[in-house]
């Protein structure tokens, strides 16, 4: 019996192939979106693990000279001879045709990933596969090692370098970040004039039973660089995770809506089946079986679709990850059970959830109940009230949670509460607005239009919720990304106010440099710092010269009046945001400067990307308290940076790495950020597309069911054309209203991401920047989505033959 009921129900789809296709496509799209985000996430995490195994766990740490100078070759030899797994690095800036490139020289015999003893996960570790390798890259590997060497560069960098004189042969490699020239260490030393010297040494500090590093190479300190990079990486992951979360919500809504509609469309068949004596149990079983079958079929298609989307996006993700920490993301996406299962799971959960409701309705349906699809079902005030209450409660829970719980989970509960709460509030809010409008308009047509729109709300609600979530996600993530970029750019501009940064090789050279620069440049500002424990944790103390560069540019979050004067006079300290938040410090409070006096905290400054605590004191105080502080680095203000840099290079035997112009630093860091967010942008557009499709599916289905409601209006004299135009207007109006609801939701989302999640994750807060032009663009997109979704149903309505309308009256049941 169940089988026959199943066949009967399924036969509906044979007669409505278009509906069936829409249903499957909607489900598949939702699953596809979710799957693609999961696949990218899984891939990114896997490569992150590989990279940290190679660069951390296994695990090379970066060591630099404590005084910021270069490292003699003998130090490297001493490390290796003592049994430490170590690999040398040479770095510097190289100007080619008025552009500056970052040169990185490595020793391919010992570098992590080369299969040497720093091997980690990338190169197969000690011993390799022993097969002798294939011959494919043999010539390149050999040329890399042999003078004059080979430069590996990203394709765009390589083409910019074409025809440049004085460089070794350039080969393109997708594995190198843009703007970086990766080459053999000997070639790098030649290019940078650093023969016999190293910039850094990668060491695996976990090796046991050797002469301790502190004894063997006391001049080397572990650099914080990798930690900074890890922060950025985490930020990227957070982006993806948040997106995965949003796409999950959107996907679930769409699946739920699609299955719910499928039930409504077959109300008549169900009534007939029950009237013919089909037992309720069989009907329920058939409905569940059908839902599962649909979910699995569409789920599989969706997983395949997601795979396609993820593969298409992967190059961008790969470039981002490479840019962030040199992790190698293979060109091909690997199929991982995790995201396949989760893709199918979302389809099944959504389908079963929706079926549960259908089953409840089927069970409650009287044998002689109306066989009409309940497209016009008027939502009861009570139900809307309940929904609004639930939505408000969810938002409240989300808002309250961060007050009681710490950590990233609280942040995500906040996000979830905001999103779901706002989604639940949508239908009641729209209903209220429409009711309000209805009261204020006069005229039968307008009144009917608004009442009819209200009546459609329950059926359209899920599609509209999906649209709202997509719009809110778009707004939220867009605002977050924009704020991040704006803050970061501004911060770079402020922090890197000086035109040139120079690091001397030793104290004597530093003194000569200072004399030279004081004559040639507008101002020479020492950048001197020392590492000390601040309130019990490792941190840095910087000395700041009393100069307008700082007063005018340094971004202070909050400050007492006369803060810079107090700092210059040695009467106050400024603390960075991380330390301020972590230790819950207050302005005006006394801060114990290590080895010195307790000084008043006069200001808090932003210090993005830095995990450690940091304070700034007056320069005189710094040199007074810590006479041994390294005095090698200077920021230089000048009107002619290029000329000055050339003059410095001509006069001083300076490693090129010791001279950095501000433009190239900015350019490089911004290009990394742009790539990070390219992926987010693509996913945003996809989400919106899927939501628009959900709306289209709902409207198409409704169009056939709503004929009985439209026929009387037609009979009263409204033309089919006018009816169709009203349909379009309705869709546009609903999209506009949904956008109106999405705007505050999206901004709240952005606020939650920036002010709560980011603080929980990284210890610093990003100021929210708003971008009204983006809103306008998005509003346009929302209208377009609504109109496109309604276009086909409206056209069909306009062309529907009059006898179809008449038939409604003839077949009145």
């Amino acid at each position, binding site marked *: 019996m169940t089988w026959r009921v199943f066949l009967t129900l399924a036969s509906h789809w044979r007669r409505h192939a278009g509906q069936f296709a829409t249903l499957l496509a909607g489900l598949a799209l939702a699953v596809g979106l979710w799957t693609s985000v999961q696949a990218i996430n899984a891939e990114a995490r896997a490569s992150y693990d590989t990279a940290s195994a*190679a*660069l951390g766990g296994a695990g090379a740490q970066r060591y630099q000279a404590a005084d910021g100078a270069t490292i003699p*070759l003998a130090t*490297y*030899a001493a490390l*290796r*001879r003592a*049994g430490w797994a170590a690999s040398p690095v040479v*770095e510097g800036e190289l100007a080619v045709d008025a552009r500056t490139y970052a040169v*990185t020289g*490595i020793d*391919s015999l*010992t*570098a*992590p*990933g*080369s*299969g*040497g*003893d720093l091997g980690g996960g*990338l*190169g197969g570790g*000690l*011993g*390799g*596969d*022993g*097969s*002798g390798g*294939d*011959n*494919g890259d*043999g010539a*390149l*590997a050999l040329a890399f*090692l*042999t*003078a004059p060497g080979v430069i590996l560069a990203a394709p765009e960098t390589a083409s910019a370098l074409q025809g440049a004189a004085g460089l070794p042969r350039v080969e393109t*490699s997708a*594995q*190198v970040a843009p703007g*970086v020239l*990766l080459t053999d*260490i*000997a070639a790098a030393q*030649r290019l940078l004039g650093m023969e016999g010297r190293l910039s850094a040494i*990668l060491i695996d500090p976990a090796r046991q039973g050797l002469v301790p590093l502190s004894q063997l190479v006391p001049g080397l300190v572990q*650099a914080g*660089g990798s930690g*900074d*990079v890890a922060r*950025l990486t985490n930020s990227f992951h957070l982006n993806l995770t948040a997106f995965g979360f949003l796409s999950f919500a959107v996907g679930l809504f769409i699946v739920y809506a699609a299955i719910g509609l499928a039930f409504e469309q077959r109300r008549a068949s169900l009534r007939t089946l029950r009237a013919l004596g089909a037992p309720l149990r069989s009907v329920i079983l058939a409905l569940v079986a059908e839902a599962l079958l649909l979910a699995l079929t569409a789920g599989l298609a969706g997983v395949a679709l997601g795979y396609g989307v993820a593969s298409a996006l992967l190059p961008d993700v790969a470039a981002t990850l490479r840019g*962030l920490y*040199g992790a190698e993301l293979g060109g091909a996406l690997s199929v991982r059970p995790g995201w396949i299962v989760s893709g199918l799971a979302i389809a099944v959960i959504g389908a079963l959830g929706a079926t549960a409701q259908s089953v409840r309705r089927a069970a409650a349906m009287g044998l002689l109940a109306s066989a009409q699809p309940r497209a016009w079902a008027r939502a009861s005030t009570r139900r809307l009230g309940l929904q609004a209450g639930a939505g408000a409660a969810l938002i409240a829970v989300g808002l309250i949670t961060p007050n009681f719980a710490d950590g990233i989970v609280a942040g995500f509960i906040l996000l979830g509460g905001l999103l779901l709460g706002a989604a639940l509030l949508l239908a009641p809010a729209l209903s209220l607005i429409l009711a309000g409008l209805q009261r204020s308009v006069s005229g039968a047509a307008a009144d009917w239009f608004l009442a009819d729109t209200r009546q459609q709300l329950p059926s359209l609600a899920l599609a509209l919720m999906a649209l709202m979530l997509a719009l809110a996600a778009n707004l939220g993530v867009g605002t977050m990304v924009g704020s991040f970029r704006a803050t970061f750019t501004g911060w*770079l501009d402020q*922090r890197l106010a000086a035109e040139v940064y120079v690091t001397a090789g030793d104290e004597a050279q530093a003194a000569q440099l200072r004399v030279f620069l004081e004559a040639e440049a507008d101002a020479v500002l020492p950048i001197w710092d020392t590492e000390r424990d601040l309130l019990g944790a490792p941190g840095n103390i910087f000395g700041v010269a009393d100069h307008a560069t700082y007063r005018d540019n340094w971004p202070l979050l909050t400050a007492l009046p006369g803060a810079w004067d107090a700092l210059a006079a040695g009467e106050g300290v400024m603390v960075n945001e991380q330390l301020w938040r972590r230790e819950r410090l207050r302005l005006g409070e006394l801060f114990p400067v290590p080895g010195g006096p307790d000084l008043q905290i006069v200001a808090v400054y932003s210090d993005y*990307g*830095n995990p450690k605590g940091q304070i700034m004191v007056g320069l005189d105080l710094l040199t007074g308290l810590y006479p041994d502080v390294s005095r090698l680095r200077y920021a230089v203000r000048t009107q002619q940076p290029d000329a000055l840099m050339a003059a410095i290079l001509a006069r001083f035997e300076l490693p090129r790495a010791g001279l950095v112009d501000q433009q190239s630093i900015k350019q*490089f*860091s911004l290009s990394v950020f742009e790539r990070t967010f390219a992926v987010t942008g693509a996913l945003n557009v996809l989400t919106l597309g899927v939501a628009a499709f959900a709306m289209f599916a709902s409207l198409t289905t409704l169009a056939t069911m709503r004929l009985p409601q439209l026929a009387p209006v037609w009979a009263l004299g409204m033309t089919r054309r006018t009816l169709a135009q009203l349909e379009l207007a309705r869709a546009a109006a609903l999209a506009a209203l949904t956008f109106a609801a999405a705007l505050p939701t999206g901004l709240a989302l952005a606020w939650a991401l920036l002010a709560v999640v980011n603080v929980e994750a990284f210890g610093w807060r990003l100021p929210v920047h708003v971008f009204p032009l983006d809103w306008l663009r998005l509003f346009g997109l929302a209208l377009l989505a609504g109109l496109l979704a309604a276009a086909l149903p409206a056209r069909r309505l306009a062309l529907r033959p009059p006898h179809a309308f008449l038939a409604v009256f003839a077949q009145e049941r």
Partner: protein
Amino acid sequence: MMIRMVIALASLLCSTPALAPAFAQGFAGLGTQADGFAVPEREPDFQFPQDHLAHPEYRIEWWYLTANLSGEDGREYGVQWTLFRTALAPQDGEGFASPQLWMGHAGLTTPERHFYAERLARGGVGQAGVEGDPFTAYIDEWEMRSTASAGDALDALSLYARGDAFSYRLDLEAQGPLVFHGEDGFSVKSAAGQASYYYSQPFYQVEGVLELAGGPVAVTGNAWLDREWSSQPLSEDQRGWDWVSLGFDDGDKLMAFQLRQEDGSVYTSASWIEPDGTLTAVPDGALEMTPLQTAEVAGRDIPTRWRIVLADRDLDVEIAALNDQSWMATRFSYWEGPVAITGSHAGRGYLEMTGY
């Protein structure tokens, strides 16, 4: 600090092409042309201790030591310590610009396990090389250092190497003179005339300690050091070799090898060494090496039992591996392990097989 972060970003290390392919022509690149490199010539005039050191104008060179050892309980062990030098160009150089590359291989074989380790280094930076006064061949913390107070630098050595799961420290004392293979150290490797300079110190007595997972093991035994350098020891059609160094209980020793050619024929060479160091070179064709049994090692069939016949010396012995799986799964891989000798003569030795 942001500046540091940005510089850290700029300095990202990418995975680099492994060195392996650079060595992948023929076996270990030994079959390639000798452009610009010096070529061994007849009637060598060795000067010691200088010739114990590196010869950068030649393409390849090695310091190759193998030892047959026994624990106090009679358990057998084999130890290998090798330093290879490969030149990308026939000169030395300062710093990383030096075209000399160094590779260390260490092996430790027990009847059940075979441990190995590999190190790579650039010349010119003090990470690896061979120095005189005292003679020291080293790569990273591994070293072969002369402890001789008089006589030849190689008369007494201390040896150290370490891998992830093993290490050893041995003291070696030579009981006889250096011996020179082929024509006074000019060793021909093919009918076409490819040759190398080749001498050995086969008379070491060894004492030392092996560090294994179970703790230290005191060992004694014998060792054999090979010194060889050339620029093109294999001809184009030679694919690998089977080499043995055998020490018989009566004090005689045999170094023998066959080079396998593509057409299935072999080029053979051997040296019969008497206890006083008298060496008799055995010409091509006189030695017969016949595989008796193969074992599956690293996915290939490798002969681990051989019959070796040298009619001139009434020698007809079988050699059998202490451990069939003595596979050096290094960047270019080969079989190297201790063997037991039975038949007309008894004793112990080392077997090396390449190109399988």
